[in-house]
């Protein structure tokens, strides 16, 4: 199923929906993993967003980010709560940061660097929202452990994404097409 966004760039609906489903699947897996502290997130659902950097066109990538947000919001039931605001803010920030960094600096920055940039952008937006919605100025007390956990998980996820990009047959076939 392919829809034409304009005469030159058809949106690959199948591929976007598959990757969006993959984000949802990974976020379900992450939900099942017990976490020692409430603010700890592995960010597994960002893996398809990282893989998609070399495959999707800007409109397709934006659609993927939107589907990630909507899908997660609907499945967890948080779409009409503050949590959705955090999710939308962090997804938009990380998707934009990763996409622009990939487009501008892919010669110099690998998946680890892109992952760290995306995670930091996401975390900073979440901290800023927490500052105004939940915690007030005291929020900066949570910032150091929050950013540290985000950094470590981003490095691990970036290493995994880099390995996948290097070794995946599926990825190579998509890049070639």
């Amino acid at each position: 199923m392919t829809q034409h966004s304009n005469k030159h760039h058809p949106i690959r609906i199948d591929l976007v929906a598959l990757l969006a489903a993959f984000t949802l699947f990974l976020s379900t897996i992450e939900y099942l993993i017990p976490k020692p502290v409430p603010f700890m997130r592995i960010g597994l659902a960002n893996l398809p967003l990282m893989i998609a950097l070399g495959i999707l066109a800007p409109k397709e990538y934006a659609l993927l980010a939107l589907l990630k947000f909507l899908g997660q919001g609907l499945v967890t039931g948080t779409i009409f709560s503050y949590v959705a605001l955090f999710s939308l803010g962090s997804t938009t920030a990380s998707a934009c940061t990763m996409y622009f960094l990939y487009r501008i600096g892919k010669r110099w920055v690998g998946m680890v660097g892109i992952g760290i940039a995306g995670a930091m952008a996401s975390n900073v937006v979440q901290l800023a929202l927490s500052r105004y919605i939940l915690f007030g100025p005291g929020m900066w007390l949570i910032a150091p452990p929050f950013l540290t956990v985000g950094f470590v998980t981003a490095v691990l996820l970036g290493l995994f994404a880099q390995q996948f990009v290097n070794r995946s047959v599926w990825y190579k076939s998509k890049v070639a097409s």
Partner: protein
Amino acid sequence: MNVKRADIRLVAGLVMLPAVLLQTSVLFQFVQVCYAVSLAVYFKRRFRLLPNVLLLITVTLVNVFQPNGLHLFDIGSLPVTAGALLVGIRKALTLIGLLYLSQYMVSAKPKFPGALGRLLSMQFMYVDQIAERWASMDKRKPIQAIDTLLLSFESENILMENHDESVDTGPIILKELRCNIIHCALFWILFILGSSALADTLAVYLY
């Protein structure tokens, strides 16, 4: 009548949201939160006590660092004030209340209209397929497993099935409508009570 249960719950939730958001009394907000949790749980959404308690404690503790109002006691050199505690508890209760209200709003599985709605349906169909195929895969080599999984969807078209075949009948809609009017009314009654002198009297009595 082309109204669905999902639409009624969605609209009812939107009507109830401001009653929680604008609530000024912690006590009546707590009752609203319990009500929202009960609604979500009744419609088979999951409730876990520990994450909510942790959220309540974390938000309250962080807010304690901004002294405000009556000085209660000190933790080391940190003054704990009644105003800061109340602000923290209110923020946490609002967050939890909206969370479960949101769960109630999507409990009847609302559908997005148009192309985006079809795309979301397709996403959920792929999720089912991924979960099914992933279960039978060797996960000891995760990169290979994900690659095999994604390759398995190549040259395959996921058929867009229409999962929205069920039609809500008149009596079901009326019952849903009646129930939701009652829920909305109760949420707003709690809001009015929270803004009235009764809340102040109860607060003095409790504190």
